[in-house]
C-alpha cells in the first residue's frame, strides 16, 4: 500500500514538474494582433498614478481632456492605484502590465533607473521643449549617468507654518529666522491653558521621519547616504543635526501628531495643538479647506549654522521601456511637463511647478503663502536615498522613534539603524 502511494506521489510530482517546465520553456507568443486601419483609430495610452483629493483629481482630468482635444489621435486612460503604489507598480512592471506613462516619486527613481525598466528620454528632447527651464535639482533626481529617465511634474519643499493668533498671544512679532529663535519661540508657545497638567498647545509639531530630517544632518555637514549608497547617518554631524529635533521633543516643547491624537502634522497644526509645523505645499489647500478660520502664515525654514536648508520632494513622469506606443507616450509627457500643461496643473495650488517660467507666470514667487516654499527649492535637499531607499528609511525611522521616546540614546539608535540598513543592503547586493 505504501509502495503504491509512493508511486502515485512520484507520478504526480513528475507530471507537475513537466507542466511547470513546459510553462517556463514555452516561447513567447505575441498575442497582439496589429489592428487594421491604425491611422484613423485613436491610440489608447495608459497613464498610471495615485489618487489625491477630489478637487485635484478633477483638475487633473481637465488637463487630460485638454490634451486629448489637442491630440485627437491619442486617448488617455488614467489608472489610479489606491494604496501601496510602488508595490503595485513594481509587480505590474514585472508582469509586463505596467502603464505606458506613470508617476514616479524621486525617492523610488534610483532603483527603477538602475534596473533598466524606464525609457531614456534624451533622444526625444527637442530644443523647443526648453529643458533649461526646469529646476536643476529636480531634473537631477531623474538622471543616472547623464541619462534622463523622467521629467519632474511638480515639486514641494518644506517651510515653517505658524499660527498668527498663537504668535500674537505669546507676544511674538516675527517668525523665527534661526533655529535658536525657533526653540525660544517654541518654549513660549507651549501652553497648558486649563492648567490640568496636559499641554494643549505645543510650540512645534514634528515628524520623526527621515524624509523630513535629512536637511538637519546636512546643516552640520552630515548626510543620509554616502556616494556608494550606504547609510551613513550615524556620523557626529548627523547626530548634531538630529538633536535639533530630539532635544525639544524631550523638553516637551515639541510633539508628534499621535501624541495629541492627530494623524498628521497639518491636522495637528490646524486643530491648534501645535503653533508651528514644518510642512510642505500640500498643507496650504488642506488648511484652507479644512480649517478656513485658521490664521496662518509661512516663512522659510529657520537657518541652522547660518545656512538655509529644507527638503524638496518631486514626482516625475516616466515612460515604460516596454511601452508599445512610445512616440505617443512622449507626446503626453511633453504636454504634461510643457509650459501650457504644467501651468494648467499648477494652478490648482497643491504643488509647485518644476519650471521657473511657470512659477513666474503664476506669481508663486510673490505669493505671500508660497514665496517661502518657492525660495526653498533653490537650496533644498532632494529626497533620495540611493537604490535601497526602504531599507535605509525603515531602519532609521524604527530606531529614531525609540531614541526620541528616550528608550535609548540617539547615538546608539543611529548606529544600530545604520548597521541594520547596511547589512540589508549588503545582503540584497550579494
Amino acid at each position, binding site marked *: 500500500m505504501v*509502495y503504491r502511494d509512493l508511486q502515485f506521489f512520484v507520478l*504526480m*510530482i513528475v*507530471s*507537475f*514538474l513537466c*507542466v*511547470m517546465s513546459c510553462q517556463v520553456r514555452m516561447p513567447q507568443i505575441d498575442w497582439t494582433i496589429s489592428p487594421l486601419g491604425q491611422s484613423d483609430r485613436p491610440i489608447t495610452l495608459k497613464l498610471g498614478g495615485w489618487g489625491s483629493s477630489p478637487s485635484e483629481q478633477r483638475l487633473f482630468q481637465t488637463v487630460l481632456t485638454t490634451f486629448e482635444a489637442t491630440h485627437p489621435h491619442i486617448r488617455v486612460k488614467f489608472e489610479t492605484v489606491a494604496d*501601496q503604489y*510602488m*508595490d503595485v507598480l*513594481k*509587480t505590474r*512592471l*514585472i508582469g509586463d502590465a505596467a502603464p505606458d506613462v506613470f508617476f514616479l516619486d524621486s525617492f523610488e527613481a534610483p*532603483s*527603477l533607473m538602475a*534596473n*533598466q*525598466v524606464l525609457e531614456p528620454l534624451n533622444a526625444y528632447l527637442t530644443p523647443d521643449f526648453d529643458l533649461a527651464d526646469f529646476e536643476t535639482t529636480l531634473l537631477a533626481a531623474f538622471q543616472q549617468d547623464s541619462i534622463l529617465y523622467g521629467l519632474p511634474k511638480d515639486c514641494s519643499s518644506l517651510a515653517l507654518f505658524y499660527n498668527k493668533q498663537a504668535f500674537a498671544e505669546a507676544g511674538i512679532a516675527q517668525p523665527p529666522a534661526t533655529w535658536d529663535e525657533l526653540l525660544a519661540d517654541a518654549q513660549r508657545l507651549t501652553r497648558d491653558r486649563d492648567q490640568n497638567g496636559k499641554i494643549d498647545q505645543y510650540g512645534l509639531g514634528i515628524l520623526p521621519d527621515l524624509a523630513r530630517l535629512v536637511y538637519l544632518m546636512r546643516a552640520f555637514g552630515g548626510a543620509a547616504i554616502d556616494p556608494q549608497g550606504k547609510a551613513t547617518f550615524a556620523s557626529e554631524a548627523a547626530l548634531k543635526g538630529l538633536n535639533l529635533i530630539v532635544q525639544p521633543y524631550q523638553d516637551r516643547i515639541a510633539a*508628534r501628531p*499621535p*501624541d*495629541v*491624537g492627530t494623524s498628521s502634522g497639518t491636522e495637528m497644526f490646524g486643530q491648534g495643538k501645535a503653533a508651528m509645523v514644518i510642512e510642505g505645499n500640500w498643507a496650504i489647500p488642506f488648511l484652507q479647506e479644512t480649517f478656513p478660520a485658521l490664521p496662518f502664515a509661512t516663512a522659510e525654514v529657520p537657518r541652522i549654522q547660518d545656512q538655509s536648508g529644507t527638503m524638496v520632494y518631486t514626482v516625475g513622469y516616466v515612460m515604460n*521601456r516596454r511601452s508599445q506606443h512610445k512616440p505617443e507616450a512622449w507626446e503626453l509627457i511633453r504636454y504634461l511637463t510643457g509650459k501650457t500643461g504644467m501651468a494648467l496643473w499648477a494652478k490648482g495650488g497643491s504643488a509647485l511647478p518644476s519650471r521657473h517660467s511657470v512659477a513666474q507666470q503664476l506669481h508663486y514667487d510673490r505669493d505671500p503663502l508660497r514665496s517661502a516654499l518657492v525660495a526653498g527649492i533653490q537650496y533644498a535637499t532632494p529626497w533620495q536615498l540611493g537604490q*535601497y531607499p*526602504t*531599507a535605509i528609511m*525603515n531602519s532609521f*525611522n*524604527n*530606531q529614531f*522613534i*525609540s531614541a526620541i*521616546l528616550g*528608550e535609548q540614546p540617539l547615538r546608539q539608535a543611529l548606529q544600530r539603524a545604520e548597521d*541594520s540598513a547596511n*547589512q*540589508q543592503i549588503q*545582503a*540584497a547586493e*550579494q
Partner: protein
Amino acid sequence: MLKRRRRSHLTTPGIRTEGAGYLLMAPAILGLGFFTIAPILFAIFLSFQKVKLLGGIEYEFVGLRNFARLAADDRLWIALKNTAEYVAIVVPAQTVLALALAATLNAGIKGQNIWRILFFLPTITSSAVLTLIFMWIYNADGLLNQALALVGLPTYNWLSDPNVALKGIMIMNIWSTAPFFMVIYLAALQDIPRSLYESAEIDGANSWQQFRYITLPQLRPVTFFVVAMGVIGTFQLFDQSYIFSGGSGGPNNATLTVVLLIYQSVFRDLQLGYAAAIAFLLAIVIITVTLIQQHIFGQEST
C-alpha cells in the same frame, strides 16, 4: 514479490479499476496539484535561487545562500520573537476565552440565541475593517484611553509606542477570533452525554469538579484542534500588523511579523528567493509546534 506485483498491476482489469478511480479523483488531484503541490514545489525551487525580477526575469542558482542569510538577518529574529510572543499570549487567551464563552452559553442563559449572535459578530467582520475601527479606539484621544483615564488607569500611545503596539493587536485578535472557537467548543459541549453529569451528580461532585473531571477531558480532542488552528492562524499574522503599521512593521519593528517580513521581501525588495527561504522557516516552525502539541495532547486527537 515486487515483480509479481508489477505484473498484476499491468493486467487489464487492474488498469481499468485504477484508471476509473484516478479519473474520478482527477478534478481534486488537478486542483490540489496546481494550487497546492505545484506552488510548494516552486517555492522549494525559488528558495535556492536569486531571482532578478525587474527588467527581465532571471534565475541564478545560489545554493544555500538564502538560508545562510536567514541566520544573519536581525529583522527576521525580531519578527520571530514578535510572532512567538504573539502566539504565546493570544493562543492560550483566546482558547480560555472561547471555552468560557461556550460554557456560559451552554449553561442555558436567557436569550441564548441573541448572545450567540452578539458573541459571533466580531468573527464574521472583515479583519481589515476591524483593524481600522480598533485604530480609532486606540487613538491617543480614543475610546480606550478615555475609558482607562476614567477609571484612573494609565493611558498609552497604543499606535506609536513600540512597547504596546503589538499588545494592541493581541487584544484585538483575541476579541475577534475567540468567538469562532467558541462555536466549535459549543458544538462539542453539546455532544457530551448528559448521563456522565448525572452520574457525577449522584456521586456528589460539585459543578467545578464536573467541569474539571468531565467537561475538560471530554473536550480534549477539540482543544487540540482549537489550539492547533490557533497556533497556525496566529503564526501567520499579517493583515492586522500590515494595516497598523502601514506595511512597515513599525514602530521600531514592534509589529513586524514573519509573514509581514515575507511580504516586504517580495513586494518591497523584490527578493523572491529570500522570501521563499523565510516562508520555509515559518512552515518548519509551525509544523514543529503542531507536532509538539500533538505529543502533549496524546493519541485521542488523531
